[in-house]
C-alpha cells in the first residue's frame, strides 16, 4: 500500500455492497462520478455457481435503471419476463387479471436470480474507471462535518468524500451512526422462498394467490422454472421448512395446483421474518440512506428492491445534477431534494402493502367478500380505463415524477 492509497478521495462513498449499493456505484460510475463502494463481503460471495433460490422482481422501470447503469444487457438473457399478472383469492374464479398488452408491448417486469444480478454488477464495476470497489473490509468509523465525510476502514485506510450513502441494509450502521430512528412492526409472518422446476411452461404468468395465512406468489423465471414466495404464520414456517422433500412438495402442490404440470423443488428452502420498517428521515448532514437502510416492506407487491432502485435513480440524479454545475452533492439542499422526491413514493407503497397484507391475510367473512367484489370490480374495468392502467403502471414502477434513469434517459 503506498501513501497515496492511504486516503482514498472520491465524491461519493457508498457503504454496503448489496444490490442497491452496487447499482448506485454503477449508475454514478457510468456518469463519470468518482465513487468508492465499501463492501464487508468478499467480491466472490453470493456468486457461487448454482441457484440458491433467491430471486428478485425487477419492475419495468427498474430494468431501465439497470440498463442506464450498464448492467441490464448482462442480465436480460437470464431474466423471465412477466407478461401477465393474476391476483386470486383461494382459487376464486373472480380474479384480477392484468395483461401487459393493455399498457403497451413491454412486460411488467422480470424475475431475476439475485446471483445473476450480482454477477452482472460485479462485471460492470471494473469497466468503470471512476469506481473503486473496496472489499472485503469493514467500516470502523464515520466522521462528518460541514466540509465533508471521512470513512475509516478496518485495514487502516480512509475514504474521504462529500457524501456518504448508507446502503447497508435493514440494520444499517450508517443510519445508527446518524441517530436516525425507525418505526415499524412485524407481521408475525415469515416468507418461505423456494423454486420449482415444472413440466408445463408458465407463459410469463405471475400469480398472487391470497391464502388465509398470507399471499402465496408464483413468479415466472427464465425457462420452466417458477420462484415461490410463500407467506406463512411465523410458527408454522419453521415446521414447513423442515419437512422431507416429498411432503414439502405435497404442500406446494396443494397451493400451486395443476397449471404447471409435474414439478419438483430446486435450490434451497429458506424463510425470513416479514416486517415493515421506515426511517424517520432519509438524510442527515452529508449522509443519505437508500433501499432497506431506510425502508423495508412486505413482499406482497414485489416492490422491495424496486423501491430501492428508484432511490438509486433519484439519488444518482441529484448527485449528478449537482456535480455537473459545480455544486456540492452532499449539501443540505441537494439532500433535501432527494428526501422530498423519495418520501411520497415510499410511504405510498409502505401504506399500500401494509393495507393489502392486512386485508388479505385473514378469513374474516365481510373482508373476504369485500376484497372479492373489489378485485372483480377493478377487473371489469376496460383495459384502458385510467384506474386499471394506473394499477398496472404502478406494478411497472412508472408512476410519479420519474427520475431520468427510470424514464430510460441518460443521467
Amino acid at each position, binding site marked *: 500500500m503506498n501513501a497515496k492509497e492511504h486516503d482514498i478521495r472520491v465524491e461519493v462513498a457508498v457503504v454496503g455492497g448489496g444490490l442497491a449499493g452496487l447499482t448506485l456505484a454503477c449508475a454514478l460510475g457510468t*456518469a*463519470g462520478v468518482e465513487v468508492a463502494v465499501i463492501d464487508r463481503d468478499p467480491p466472490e460471495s453470493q456468486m457461487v455457481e448454482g441457484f440458491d433460490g433467491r430471486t428478485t422482481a425487477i419492475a419495468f422501470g427498474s430494468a431501465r435503471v439497470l440498463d442506464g447503469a450498464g448492467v441490464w444487457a448482462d442480465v436480460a438473457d437470464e431474466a423471465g419476463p412477466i407478461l401477465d399478472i393474476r391476483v386470486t383469492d383461494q382459487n376464486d374464479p373472480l380474479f384480477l387479471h392484468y395483461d401487459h398488452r393493455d399498457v403497451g408491448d413491454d412486460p411488467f417486469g422480470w424475475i431475476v436470480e439475485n446471483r445473476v444480478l450480482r454477477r452482472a454488477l460485479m462485471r460492470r464495476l471494473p469497466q468503470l474507471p471512476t469506481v473503486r470497489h473496496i472489499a472485503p473490509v469493514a467500516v470502523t468509523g464515520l466522521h462528518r462535518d460541514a*466540509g465533508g465525510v471521512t470513512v475509516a476502514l478496518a485495514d487502516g485506510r480512509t475514504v474521504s468524500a462529500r457524501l456518504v450513502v448508507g446502503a447497508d441494509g435493514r440494520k444499517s450502521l450508517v443510519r445508527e451512526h446518524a441517530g436516525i430512528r425507525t418505526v415499524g412492526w412485524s407481521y408475525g409472518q415469515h416468507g418461505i422462498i423456494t423454486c420449482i422446476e415444472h413440466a408445463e411452461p408458465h407463459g410469463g404468468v405471475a400469480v398472487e394467490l391470497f391464502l388465509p395465512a398470507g399471499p402465496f406468489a408464483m413468479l415466472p423465471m427464465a425457462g420452466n422454472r417458477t420462484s415461490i414466495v410463500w407467506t406463512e404464520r411465523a410458527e408454522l414456517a419453521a415446521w414447513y421448512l423442515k419437512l422431507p422433500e416429498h411432503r414439502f412438495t405435497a404442500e406446494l402442490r396443494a397451493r400451486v395446483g395443476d397449471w404447471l404440470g409435474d414439478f419438483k423443488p430446486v435450490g434451497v428452502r429458506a424463510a425470513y421474518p416479514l416486517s415493515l420498517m421506515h426511517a424517520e428521515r432519509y438524510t442527515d448532514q452529508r449522509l443519505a440512506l437508500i433501499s432497506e437502510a431506510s425502508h423495508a416492506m412486505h413482499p406482497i407487491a414485489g416492490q422491495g428492491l424496486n423501491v430501492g432502485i428508484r432511490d438509486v435513480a433519484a439519488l444518482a440524479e441529484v448527485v449528478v*445534477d*449537482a456535480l*455537473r*454545475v*459545480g*455544486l*456540492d452533492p452532499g*449539501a*443540505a*439542499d441537494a439532500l*433535501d*431534494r432527494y428526501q*422530498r422526491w423519495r418520501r411520497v413514493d415510499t410511504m405510498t407503497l409502505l401504506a399500500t402493502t401494509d393495507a393489502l397484507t392486512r386485508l388479505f391475510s385473514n378469513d374474516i367473512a365481510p373482508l373476504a367478500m369485500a376484497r372479492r367484489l373489489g378485485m372483480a370490480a377493478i377487473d371489469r374495468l376496460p383495459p384502458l380505463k385510467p384506474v386499471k392502467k394506473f394499477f398496472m403502471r404502478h406494478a411497472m414502477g412508472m408512476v410519479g*415524477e420519474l427520475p431520468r434513469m427510470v424514464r430510460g434517459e441518460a443521467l
Partner: protein
Amino acid sequence: MDASGTHGREGDAAAAKARTTVDPEEIARFSAIAAEWWDPRGKFRPLHKFNPVRLGYIRDAVCARFGRDPRAARPLEGLRIVDVGCGGGLLSEPLARMGATVVGIDAAERNVKTAAAHAAETGVDVDYRATTAEDLAASGETFDVVLALEVVEHVADVELFLEALAVLVRPGGMLFLATLNRTPKSFVFAIVGAEYVLRWLPRGTHDWRKFIRPSELAAGVRRTGLDVGDITGVTYNPVSDRFALAPRDLDVNYMMWAARG
C-alpha cells in the same frame, strides 16, 4: 461573524471612486448578512434554490457557444470568467469546479473575505478581489464570460454599469445578466412574498422601483455594442420547491445573455 455591518460602510465608501455605480447603502445591507452566504437553509436560501438553474443556464449557453460538452467533468476548462458582485462566492466556486479560471469581484470587502475563506476551506481556486466592475474594466483585463447576476437591481447607475461590463467582454465572449422585472407580479412575489410573507430575505433587500424591464435591459445591453442572444424567465414552483427556466414567463425573475461578435 457579527451581523451589524456598519463598520464596513465607511471603508467601502472610501474605496469607491468619484464616479461609481456602487450604492453604499446596498453594500451595508449585504455585508450585514455575509456570514449566512453558505447556509442553504439560511438567509440566502433563495439564491441557493436559484443556483442550480442559473448555473445550468450559464453552463449550457457557454458550452454551446464555445463548443464544449456540458456533460464533461470540467466543461469550462480554460475559459476565463469574471463574477461581478460575487457575494459569498455561490457562483464563483461552482464555476471554478467546472474548470473555469474565475475572478470574483465584489465592492464589499467583507463579502470577498467571506468568499475567499470558504474557497480556502473547500480547496477551490478562485481569485477574489475587492473591486468594482468599473475599476476592473479600467485595468484592461478581459474575459470570455462576464457574469452579473442579481446585481443590476442594486446598482446606482445601470447604464454606466452595463458599459463597464461590456468593456470586460472579449471579442467572441459572453455577458450574462439576471435580475427582477418591474411588474405588479414582481412586487407581489419578490417584495411582499419573499421579504414579508416567506421572510426569505430581510425587509428592504430590494427596492421595486430599481427593478428593470427586460426590454429596458436588452436595449441598454445593445447600446454597449453587444448582441442579445437569449432571454428567459425563471419561475418558482412551490410544490417541488424548485426554480426552473420558463422561457415565456419573464414577469418576475429573468436571465439573459449577450455576446460580442
